[in-house]
């Protein structure tokens, strides 16, 4: 896997990249890529377009869904660049590209309950080796998994999900990579940022150091490697 370091100039930490293309240039074939967003809220559309143009293949994707309509993740699926997807809710009215690949056996699906998906991502970023959750005990999604009775409840052992890259969308960033979000567009972004070796963020606005209220920073810059400002007109999927 390629190195993923911010460009360090003398005495200056600057995570700003000039373009989405530059920020994803070293993403290799076979990478595991987390993609933020829940529906269109928080979907890093410009980064998705850049990933499609970049050409990396055999990707493992982590997202809540499996693509909607014909853009973003759906377009990446359509281009047959994804070998496996981990998600909680692939089947939707407009998930036709995933549906076709799944039915023809061209994509592997690991279906994960939504809260377990979130906690497995969180565990990776937090350095936790696994956790016991009551979710899915006694169901098909716990088949073959280790279980344990703790107190008066039954639990299922789940493992962290690590990623090579996380592609997320935030609202504002400074050059240290501190992030704020907008409303429910936050969803998976903070935990994915921490779970990936290289978190790439598209933001609406970049600001000077000190301009973000430290009390309001949601993702501290330590979890972020690269920041790309995408003008408002390009925030939506092409």
């Amino acid at each position, binding site marked *: 896997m390629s190195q993923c370091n911010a460009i360090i100039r003398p005495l200056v930490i600057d995570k700003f990249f000039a373009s989405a293309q530059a920020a994803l240039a070293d993403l290799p074939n076979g990478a595991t890529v987390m993609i933020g967003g829940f529906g269109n809220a928080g979907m890093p559309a410009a980064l998705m377009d850049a990933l499609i143009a970049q050409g990396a293949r055999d990707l493992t994707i982590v997202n809540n869904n499996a693509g909607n309509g014909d853009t973003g993740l759906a377009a990446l699926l359509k281009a047959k660049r994804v070998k496996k997807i981990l998600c*909680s809710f692939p089947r939707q009215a407009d998930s036709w590209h995933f549906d076709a690949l799944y*039915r023809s056996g061209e994509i592997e699906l690991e*279906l994960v309950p939504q809260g377990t998906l979130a*906690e497995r991502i969180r565990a990776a970023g937090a350095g936790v080796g696994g956790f016991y959750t009551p*979710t*899915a005990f006694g*169901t*098909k*999604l716990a088949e073959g998994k280790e279980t344990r009775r703790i107190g008066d409840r039954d639990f299922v052992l789940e493992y962290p999900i690590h990623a090579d890259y996380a592609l997320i969308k935030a609202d504002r960033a400074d050059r240290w990579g501190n992030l704020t979000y907008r*409303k429910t567009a936050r969803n998976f972004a903070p935990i994915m940022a921490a779970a990936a070796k290289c978190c790439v963020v598209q933001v609406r606005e970049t600001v000077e150091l000190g301009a973000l209220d430290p009390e309001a920073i949601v993702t501290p810059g330590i979890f972020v490697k690269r920041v790309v400002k995408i003008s408002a007109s390009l925030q939506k999927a092409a």
Partner: protein
Amino acid sequence: MKKLDRNQMAARVARDIPDGSVVNLGIGLPTLVGDHLPKGREIILHSENGVLGVGPRPGPGQEDEDLINAGKEPVTLLSGGSYFHHADSFAMIRGRHLDFCVLGAFQVSTAGDLANWHTGGADAIPAVGGAMDLAVGAKKVLVMMEHLTKKGESKIVERCTYPLTGARCVNRIYTDLAVIDVKADGLHVVETVDGLSFEELQRLTGVPLKRMLTAA
């Protein structure tokens, strides 16, 4: 007998949500409950995509694509509302901080097993979302569904034939025919719709039902 329509079912569930509760409404039919919460009650709606204090639908032209509910529909935020990430959102669910969740269902068993995520069909694409977390996490799990399938079979069954969402997790079932509590000793009928006798409900349902001691 007068079956309840979808809005009447939603209003019936809403009537039972007490003042001061924190509630998650599942996608689809349960979301309608939000439209029928009795005026004057302070109830906080949680949506698992990361919001507490979900308000009504925005007016035309007022939609914000960054402010949606778990069904990906545009919503508003009440004063006092808050946003948080997914791991925190499911900590609220799994950590037993929600008073109620309302879920749809394909089937509920006499033991309170819930099946609502997958028909198990070979060609069916499974999708689970947050249903399994809500089923084990909410303090009370309320199910809202039509009593009978389109073929007239009871959706309340001895054992679920569809894959389970959660085992022994349902507390109360609201259907278009009745309200039924799931208790350790079986199913207790709380009330039936106008014109439907206990005996007729028993005949339609198949599995053994008990009468509540107190008349509804």
